[in-house]
């Protein structure tokens, strides 16, 4: 076996693996605040996250490969939060859902001593979903964006450009 063939083979294998990963994201159950309810709504009857293979919520980080940060991360939970992230096996992804997770949201004010203004200060974030809280459609779009990031192709055509 020549050395030069190996990278090609692995690239193909990676592509297949990524396709599998993107279509079976297993998020971790880690509801923090209001956005967690919208995350639940996304997984439930109407929005049906199962269509994208991503509604297998795991209660333990060791079985999950996606962390959806749904709410304010305070300084008190930050060590717990980073531990959970470290416990997740690679490859792993993070969606920052809602303004609190993105930047502290409405709770960043002068004299605030308790929150971390943006979860990207703690862990690398792949997709940001803005809103307070974001609608389930927005979270679905976040999932599609993440799939696009993993596989480099978009599964569904994006929303039509109106302007």
């Amino acid at each position, binding site marked *: 076996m020549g050395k030069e063939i190996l990278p090609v083979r692995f690239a193909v294998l990676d592509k297949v693996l990524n396709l599998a990963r993107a279509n079976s994201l297993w998020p971790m159950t880690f509801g923090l605040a209001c956005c967690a309810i919208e995350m639940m709504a996304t997984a439930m009857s109407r929005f049906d996250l199962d269509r994208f293979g991503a509604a297998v919520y795991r*209660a333990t980080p060791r079985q999950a490969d996606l962390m959806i940060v749904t709410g304010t991360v305070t300084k008190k939970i930050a060590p717990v939060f980073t531990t959970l992230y470290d416990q997740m096996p690679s490859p792993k992804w993070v969606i920052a859902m809602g303004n609190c997770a993105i930047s502290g949201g409405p709770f960043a004010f002068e004299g605030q001593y308790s929150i971390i203004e943006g979860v990207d200060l703690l862990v690398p974030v792949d997709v940001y979903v803005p809103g307070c809280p974001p609608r389930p459609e927005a979270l679905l779009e976040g999932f599609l964006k993440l799939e696009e990031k993993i596989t480099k192709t978009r599964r569904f055509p994006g929303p039509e450009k109106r302007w």
Partner: protein
Amino acid sequence: MVEEVKSGISQLLRERRPVEEPYGEKGYHLSVDMAPKDLIDVGRFFKEKGFYLACALCVDFRDYLELVYFFAHHEGHCRVKVTSRLDPQAPYAPSLSSVFGSALWYEREIHEFFGVRFEGHPNMAYLFLHGGIDFYPLRKEKVMVSEEDRALLNSFRPEEGEDTFFINLGPQHPSTHGVLRVVLKMDGEYIERAEPVMGYLHRMHEKMAENRTYLQFLPNTGRMDYLGAMAFNLGYVTAVERLCGIKAPPRAQYVRVIATELNRISSHLLWLGAYLADLGAMTPFLYVFDDREQILDILEGITGSRLTYCYFRFGGLFNDVDEDFITGVRRFIARMRGRFQIYDDLVTKNVIFINRTRNVGVITRETARQYGVSGPVLRGAGIAMDMRKKEPYAAYGEFDFSIPTGSYGDAHDIYLVRFKEMEESLNIIEQALNGLPEGPIMAEKVPKKLKPPKGDLYHVVETPRGELGIYIVSDESDIPYRMKWRVPSFANLMVFPELVRGCLLADAIAILGSLDLVIPEIDR
């Protein structure tokens, strides 16, 4: 009842007299100021009379710290404000925890935010704050944390012993509904002691209130209790209206009731799904979200948001309701009445569910009074107290509805109470729709910048989880001087360590679920 308390306190305290207050403006009937040393005697007096400690808080007036206790009665209509002034340099007060169980946590809360030390308190460890905070957050001047308090910062540290086994329930646990942590001391499969640790979502709403105007604080209310956002909105709006003497027109009041009751149903539905998911049943979760989405569609049409509503304004509403809304609500009522039968067949008569919840977490009336429990948990224990009926706000006084109560106080009774409450809510909505008056939706001449007169107010509303008390101190500026939120989940969680003592770990989940906690509301 007010007279009885007044004469009783007059006899107890020879030199201080209770003052009768205008209930309509203040929200309490009597106020009495006393030296800190008399607090315990007065606490015992209220305990004998069957009162419960509704709320304890502290206000920093710069020259002195004022401790405020609110005592209220479940049956009688009487609320008493007891105050005591402390020296801000060395704030010491006797602990009421030997008299009222609910004082345990309120005093810890006051201690960490104001630095007041309570003598005789069994455990002064911090509830909310974490290490690294070196000042008392709610003091008006920056006061550094004393050395002895710094040692208490790392909250609960279980003592080691022979044959003890500790389990950390949370903060990341699917059945704590958020980020609550409970440290359980186990004896085999049985729980010896439970110690909740909070503050993982502490965002300091009360400090935020002191930083912004009354209107700017309005969106915060929906983020405190995201499931009952309408009820919190309504509580805050009616409190400020009462403080400023604004009267909302009748149409606005009716729409407020309809929106709040719809929100109450959606909150109870979510509880139903989540509770049963905790107990191992997945199917109801899918059913309730189907119904819940119908409510969210209706509310989205008038408020523009799905979850954290900000629909009410001081003096009225953000916008008027239209025909679509009314037909939508009518259609929903008809649909929901049929769905109850499905839930009844699916859940209420389910043998596994009955076995999981019968005789689990029995709350006696005495325990409920001791810890100031409220809402469906209290009604499950057989005490028919509902603020919608007892102290009607908005238009609740005009509707005919009953208060469902349990008889035994276990988790199953609490489930039945919540279930019947949804049916009652439908009745209220139907009555409000039938009698919906025409007219304006905003009061005239509401100033853009509200400057309430000097004074204070304790306003109570009934949220899906229980009694919400809002205490506002105004200093005539457009920013509240102090705002305290007496949240129902906090008081309901207090009873949890008492309930789980000696029961199985699996039952602790059933008990925790039956309390219906919303963590951001506890942590604020």
